[in-house]
């Protein structure tokens, strides 16, 4: 920690949050809001004189509320930067008539009530997302009595109680009577592996964290009686099984079964009822203290950052990697990497391992000082451009400039263009070519597909980042569905031009599916909004022409939704069967007349 604080190459911004990210790999423009600390961190010696005189007492977050701190405080003894911080919403204010006692006693004069938040702008080539985790909030699972009974603690509270630097100097005491408990029970999987409350996933760290806690307790209190209630003990890592064995050798009682009820006794101890699945019997046990092994949830900032950087999430809410085995630290957005629990719950060792991997991946990208850009960008055909300005309006990256008044044709900034192709789809004059996904290339695929027996086939367009990846995920998971859909990959559903749809129906397609990222998850900021508008427009025209609008489907499938992809495919098959040869012929005839 201290190494990071004093490293000449590291600019440390605490009390800071990223508010906006613009640009692209190699040149991200990042806006950061640095909140005022009200203490000059470079001058503060952490002497603590200010906190001694501060009259405001608040619960200490670092000790999860088990101790108190002042409105001006040091986050914890080894904090980096080693400086006090003032919470302005708790402080009585800088008016000397009201308080300002801290300012008076500060020998270095480093407290400044007039400090204001700073807006910082940084340019970086790569971004590592290490936003960590949020412990599960056990108040939701109140059958264990966390909010009602004093002696039911969370694993994090126990952690602070046995810590030599904690509120009790490491002496374990019951909150109700401050006596050392003679017996402690641990309940595993609180907020994990449950379809009902918390996450359905295994939180990875809680088994070993409990094993560790039992060893710490047995070391300090050899006679303490410890029971662990579990579903499975997952001691899969290097050295883990050894620790688990050591814990059992020391007499810790591991019992397979999760308590069904917890009651408080008059002496504030706890009576639990648990079905011991080894014997099948319901057992009642009295324990002095109960500890809930909290699961791990994604950090609260995940969602905002996901939108800012155009990242994807797994259904559990953690960040989705570009490939689960071959690119486990890369995001699908080039230049962004994951480290630690932001990607999935993991312990300290795995977090450090992934962090080093992420750093190595970032260095691999940056070491040459230049990067090659994909040439999949849009190109304007100047003599066809009517300077209407539509392309500039739809471009999510503001990469196109066109002067509508002076009739100066559109120009694409190739470095800013991300290649979604929405402009090419929206241009009414065919004045934009989307490299590698040209009209000719895509209609070529459509025509080939529908050349024979078109009535048997479902023409499908899927975006590269979400739906195509979701279809791949269905394959990796071996989910079975009918084989009648044929998929055309585009970079974004925004590329699916109206004319591809009409071409498909004209050539006899019974059903057409357009599939993209969920709204809000678009890899190209919000290009899929234009997909929605376009499909609505086509639906209206279909109705006017007497074509059943169900025959054009729009679905959102994310990269993690293999199951959903298979469901969509299964649902399309009866729809396809419902479209008769006669209906197709009628559509073809109507569209021919239109031409």
């Amino acid at each position: 920690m201290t190494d990071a604080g004093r490293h000449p190459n590291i600019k440390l911004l605490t009390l800071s949050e990223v508010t906006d990210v613009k640009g692209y790999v190699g040149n991200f423009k990042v806006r950061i809001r640095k909140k005022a600390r009200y203490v000059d961190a470079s001058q503060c010696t952490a002497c603590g004189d200010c906190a001694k005189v501060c009259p405001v007492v608040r619960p200490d977050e670092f000790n999860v509320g088990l101790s108190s701190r002042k409105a001006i405080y040091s986050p914890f003894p080894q904090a980096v930067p080693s400086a006090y911080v003032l919470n302005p919403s708790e402080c009585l204010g800088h008016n000397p008539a009201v308080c300002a006692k801290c300012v008076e006693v500060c020998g270095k004069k480093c407290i400044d009530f007039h400090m204001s938040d700073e807006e910082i702008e940084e340019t970086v080539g790569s971004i590592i997302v290490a936003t960590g985790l949020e412990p599960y909030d056990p108040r939701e699972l109140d059958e264990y009595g966390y909010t009602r009974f004093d002696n039911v603690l969370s694993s994090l509270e126990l952690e602070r109680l046995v810590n030599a630097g904690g509120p009790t100097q490491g002496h374990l005491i019951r909150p109700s009577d401050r006596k050392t408990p003679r017996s402690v029970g641990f309940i595993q999987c609180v907020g994990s592996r449950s379809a009902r409350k918390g996450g359905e996933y295994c939180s990875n760290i809680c088994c070993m964290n409990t094993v560790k806690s039992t060893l710490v307790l047995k070391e300090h209190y050899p006679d303490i009686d410890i029971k662990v209630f579990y579903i499975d003990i997952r001691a899969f890592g290097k050295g883990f099984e050894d620790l688990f064995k050591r814990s059992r050798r020391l007499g810790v009682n591991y019992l397979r079964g999760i308590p069904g009820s917890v009651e408080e006794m008059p002496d504030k101890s706890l009576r639990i009822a648990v079905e011991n699945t080894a014997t099948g019997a319901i057992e009642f046990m009295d324990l002095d203290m109960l500890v809930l092994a909290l699961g791990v949830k994604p950090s609260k900032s995940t969602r905002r950052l996901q939108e800012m950087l155009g990242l994807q999430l797994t259904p559990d809410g953690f960040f989705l990697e570009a490939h689960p085995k071959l690119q486990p630290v890369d995001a699908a957005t080039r230049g962004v990497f994951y480290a630690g629990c932001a990607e999935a719950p993991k312990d300290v060792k795995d977090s450090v391992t992934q962090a080093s991997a992420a750093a190595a991946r970032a260095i691999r990208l940056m070491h040459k000082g230049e990067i090659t850009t994909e040439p999949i960008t849009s190109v304007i055909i100047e003599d066809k451009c009517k300077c209407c300005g539509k392309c500039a309006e739809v471009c999510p990256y503001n990469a196109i400039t066109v002067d509508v008044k002076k009739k100066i044709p559109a120009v694409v900034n190739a470095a800013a263009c991300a290649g979604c192709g929405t402009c090419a789809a929206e241009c009414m004059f065919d004045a934009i070519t989307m490299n590698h996904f040209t009209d000719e290339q895509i209609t070529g695929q459509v025509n080939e597909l529908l050349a024979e027996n078109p009535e048997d086939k479902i023409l499908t367009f899927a975006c590269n980042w979400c739906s195509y990846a979701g279809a791949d995920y269905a394959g990796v998971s071996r989910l079975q569905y009918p084989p009648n859909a044929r998929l055309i990959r585009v970079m974004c559903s925004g590329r699916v031009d109206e004319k591809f749809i009409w071409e498909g129906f004209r050539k006899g397609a019974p059903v057409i599916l357009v599939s993209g990222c969920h709204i809000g998850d678009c890899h190209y900021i919000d290009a899929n909004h234009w997909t929605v508008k376009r499909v609505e427009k086509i639906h209206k025209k279909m109705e006017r022409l007497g074509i059943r609008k169900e025959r054009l489907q729009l679905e959102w499938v994310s990269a993690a939704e293999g199951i959903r992809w298979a469901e969509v495919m299964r649902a399309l098959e009866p729809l396809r069967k419902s479209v008769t040869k006669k209906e197709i012929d009628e559509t073809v005839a109507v569209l021919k007349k239109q031409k």
Partner: protein
Amino acid sequence: MESNVMLKNGQGDDRPARIGVYVCHCGKNIADTVDCGKVADAAKDLPFVAASREIQYACSEPGQNEIKEDIENLGLDRVVVASCSPRLHEPTFRQMMTSAGLNPYLLEMANLREQCAWVHMKDRDGATDKAVDLVKMSVARVRGLQPLTEETIPLTKRSLVIGGGVAGIQAALDLADNGYEVVLVEKRPSIGGMMAQLDKTFPTMDCSI
């Protein structure tokens, strides 16, 4: 379709294009469900296809060499690899194209594994028909592809690390020790994250800070 049209080969001269089609077995992954021989045969007579063959593992070294030899001996200038998802191996085969002296954007992949063999395991005929269509579509597409060149742009040799827990600190230190400037952003008043709150950490049972 337009078999009588002269298709430029994208290599600067005006010989008609010569397309190579490779239907990968992926061991048994594809071949167990899809009749790869039938698929390769179906592509043989498509316009501009000069070679259409089955291949055991297209991505392997010998597989790539087989394709590269064809490029050399048969004068191929466009390639369709019908194998796994392009999300997995498109970079592999683009590199193969480059090393064979071809433009990497004259490659097209048909996804016969993730989106065909693995999802229609009980329907060999249906899967084979679909594979034939996917390959035909890829051949149609590869005919229309144009060579593209990548550009290089300057890059800022700095990194942003969001989050100052154990992962963020480690990533920042590794980058900084390698000579890169790092901006480490932490929303709380101190770095350290969850780890700083822990007493001992498994499996070594030592202090966390």
